[in-house]
């Protein structure tokens, strides 16, 4: 997908200009808009949403279907139909964040192509919307589509941001996620996260013989794909930072070991040859190393191995179970769990294994720590009666529990460090697992739709 950055107006004469030229013009346009906003801003407070506010975060935002100058058939459907579908995805993304109350294409009137850059500012306040998303889908005459989207402040009658993308028709959902990301980022001041993918374990079958398959999907559950056939139990996948590989645990040949799966070729290979079981794999932020745990005669420690293979470096050597490391975003430190004190607790160490110290002291057990991509928080599973997902700072302060269910486990961060996915298991003989997400307020919690039951979600980074 070609990101054109800020989008030019669809009716401008420069439509047919070379892309490079268009891109340069966009930059100019942005500069001009920025200058205008800078002058206008002090006069009236602009729209914004606070992602940390637990109450009243339901900004009404109108998202009519994207308009098209003429409906043209594409491999993914007509530009007219795509415009409406893109509007639906943008609205669903914004709704899913828990911060907005979108009025999607089925809830508001359709707009004409000419309205895209000239909103009916007299009409929209009557719908209750305080923000408005409009856009267009246009045949680019080269097998690609140009998708533009614009965010307006209804009360101020002002454009807040615009984005444009050149895509092949099959990538239309990504254009929708990118638009939603631009809107989310502009209104919250946070980094975007919708255009990203999830690796997880799809589950089926009875509780004592669960069939587990490696699967991937978009952050909203779309474009779902199974990667393994379920013959061997697979667990705990993680995307590489470039999304080209997945590291995970497989019971192939009845030997639990970590493998790297190449998404392009479908091939998998053992990461480190050992007679001992290896598990709990994690990529380093630069993708050059894999952190993993290995059990030797009942004692589990954390190791690091180069992605291409080679000698492993042992990072912990305490008697007991050291498991589940996760790198800080700058790669300098690792958070992990250890029962060296007698129960599972969280520890931080330098990435070479030095300076190991415990950070969890809140009572109960703490497990599955994951360092936020923002660096500011550690997500974990707290075991004190129920299993709950919570966060604390890397020095152990500010502990907050975000979920409360019988068994919530294994948090994984959104690319912007503002949303957490985890899996929830229900009780009893028919107990099943499902993938859920919650934001940092703990109030916006929802289930992620998956074709089968799901566990071990692992959120990848923002797509380029």
């Amino acid at each position: 997908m070609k990101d054109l950055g800020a989008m030019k107006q669809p009716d401008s004469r420069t439509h047919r200009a070379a892309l490079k030229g268009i891109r340069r013009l966009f930059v100019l346009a942005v500069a001009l808009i920025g200058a205008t906003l800078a002058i206008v801003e002090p006069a009236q407070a602009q729209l914004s949403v606070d992602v940390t506010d637990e109450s009243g975060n339901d900004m009404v935002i109108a998202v009519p279907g994207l308009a098209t100058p003429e409906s043209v058939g594409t491999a993914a459907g007509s530009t007219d139909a795509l415009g409406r579908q893109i509007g639906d995805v943008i609205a669903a993304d914004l709704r899913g964040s828990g911060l907005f109350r979108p009025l999607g294409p089925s809830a508001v009137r359709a707009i004409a192509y000419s309205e895209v850059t000239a909103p009916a500012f007299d009409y929209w306040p009557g719908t209750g919307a305080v923000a408005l998303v409009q856009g267009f889908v246009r045949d680019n005459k080269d097998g690609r589509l140009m998708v533009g989207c614009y965010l307006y402040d209804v009360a101020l009658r002002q454009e807040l941001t615009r984005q444009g993308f050149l895509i092949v028709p099959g990538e239309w959902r990504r254009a929708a996620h990118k638009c939603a990301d631009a809107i989310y980022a502009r209104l919250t001041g946070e980094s975007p996260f919708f255009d990203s993918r999830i690796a997880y374990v799809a589950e089926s079958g009875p509780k004592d013989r669960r069939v587990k398959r490696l699967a991937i999907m978009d952050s909203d559950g779309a474009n779902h794909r199974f990667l393994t056939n379920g013959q061997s139990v697979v667990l705990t996948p993680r995307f590489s930072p470039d999304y080209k590989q997945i590291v995970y645990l497989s019971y192939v040949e009845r030997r639990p070991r970590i493998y790297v799966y190449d998404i392009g070729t479908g091939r998998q290979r053992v990461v480190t040859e050992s007679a001992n079981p290896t598990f709990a794999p994690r990529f380093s932020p630069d993708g050059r190393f894999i952190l993993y745990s290995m059990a030797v005669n009942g004692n589990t420690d954390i190791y690091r191995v180069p992605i291409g293979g080679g000698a492993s470096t042992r990072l912990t050597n305490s008697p007991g179970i050291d498991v589940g490391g996760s790198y800080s975003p700058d790669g300098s430190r690792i958070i992990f769990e250890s029962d060296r004190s007698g129960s599972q607790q969280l520890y931080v160490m330098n990435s070479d294994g030095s300076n190991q110290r415990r950070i969890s002291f809140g009572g109960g057990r703490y497990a599955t720590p994951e360092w936020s991509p923002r660096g500011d928080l550690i997500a974990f599973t707290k075991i004190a009666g129920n299993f709950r997902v919570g966060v604390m700072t890397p020095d152990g302060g500010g502990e907050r529990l975000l979920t409360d269910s019988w068994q919530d486990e294994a948090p994984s961060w959104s690319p912007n460090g503002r949303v957490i996915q985890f899996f929830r298991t229900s009780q009893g003989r028919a107990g099943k697992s499902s993938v859920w997400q919650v934001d940092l307020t703990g109030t916006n919690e929802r289930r992620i739709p998956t074709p089968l039951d799901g566990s071990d979600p692992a959120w990848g980074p923002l797509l380029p």
Partner: protein
Amino acid sequence: MNARLKLAALAAALAMAGCARKPPPELPPAPMTGQEQAPVEQGVENAIVPGSRADFLRSVPSDRILFDTDMYDVDDRDRAVLDGQAQWLQRYPNVRVTIEGHADERGTREYNLALGDRRANAAKNYLQSRGIAASRMTVISWGKERPEALGSDESAWAQNRRAVTVIPQ
């Protein structure tokens, strides 16, 4: 015993193992039915092949030891069970075993993998101390992936915190 008789006896043993009180907790092969068995000669149907899984299950106090929450210690009762297993294993020095370690569902997945490994090794180390060569024993941890009891209560969890000695079919 001629080769054909051996095969028949093995088939009978397999069928018996299928009826045993404790089926193997991992994915079993498709169950053998009477129709699929090799022709069985008179008087062999109920024979148990010495050194077979069926023989093991019949001969030892139990094929497994159980653990308290988060624990992996081998107590007096466990020792009695493992002593029985060791005696049998000494009678059949060519039999190799797999010791499977398991945890209950009330633990996190990766910790439970490590805990299952710890439990299986506790059983292995004890058997080794009773004279069973380490080279005869393979350890595998299933963590919480293969529960024996399906409920979500103390009694089910107690059954699932286990190390099971499995003789090949």
